């Protein structure tokens, strides 16, 4: 994209993709502010790399960068558990507070969803999140993840099956408590 990514175009891309990217990243970090920061970090990286990114690939590049940032932040969160002296970001889920459902019930349900999504294999989760939130075609998702188109569908199916299994198992455990 030789000098064709202007600030105006970048901002237009942000408006167009912010919500999808935010929802994808949120399923890794589970924190509203952190998810937004990571999405913006992806746009900053795209801006820094604008001379090297082909115009045909700009969206794929953006999603790939943001997915990588989310995965790295998730890894960082896992490592932070072993570092009690480090000041941690607030991991409270502000979205939960605003919901009309009973807080404890929702908290428990959200916790189950987090656990189930966090247990998905990394690649399956990436594929599933892109399918659910990006509104891209399988062909476009295949390009972002650099995998065959058929693999997108099979990964999505397997991820959904695994997610359902995890949620049903957790529900069974809850009902036995």
């Amino acid at each position, binding site marked *: 994209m030789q000098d064709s990514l202007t600030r105006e175009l970048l901002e237009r891309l942000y408006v167009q993709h912010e919500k999808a990217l935010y929802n994808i990243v949120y399923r890794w970090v589970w924190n509203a502010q952190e998810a937004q920061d990571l999405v913006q970090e992806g746009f900053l990286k795209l801006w820094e790399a604008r001379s090297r990114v082909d115009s045909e690939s700009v969206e794929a590049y953006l999603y790939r960068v943001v997915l990588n940032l989310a995965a790295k932040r998730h890894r960082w969160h896992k490592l932070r558990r072993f570092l009690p002296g480090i000041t941690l970001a607030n991991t409270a889920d502000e979205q939960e507070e605003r919901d009309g459902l009973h807080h404890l019930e929702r908290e428990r349900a959200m916790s189950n969803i987090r656990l189930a999504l966090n247990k998905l294999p990394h690649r399956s989760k990436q594929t599933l999140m892109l399918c659910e939130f990006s509104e891209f075609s399988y062909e476009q998702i295949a390009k972002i993840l650099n995998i065959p188109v058929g693999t997108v569908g099979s990964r999505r199916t397997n991820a959904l099956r695994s997610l359902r299994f995890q949620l049903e198992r957790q529900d069974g455990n*809850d009902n036995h408590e």
Partner: protein
Amino acid sequence: MSRTTEHLDPFEKLTPPAGGLNKLRERLTDDRSLYPGWIIGGVLTATILAGAVGLSLQEVAMPPSAFESHLLSQLERYEQAEAILVVGPDRDIASLSVATSNPNVVFYWLEF
């Protein structure tokens, strides 16, 4: 899907915090350069520590406010690292004893 989760959709489309575009504009104009003075001091510290424990050591020292974004940028360079250890000045010795059990640890010195 289940009794406890039937009210919630795992793929519920959440709305990002307001003001994202303005925040992005601000970040685009920020000076994102690092802090050379802090890094030089940190490198000296790191060299001494690396020699003491025999680690392959990568070290950064900088104000906490800049640390997180720098750490994330550095993660890209260390894809193969098995772990990343972050310590503050008051617990360096204890943390180093953890690091020595893994030769692939990337070690950061966080200076306040």
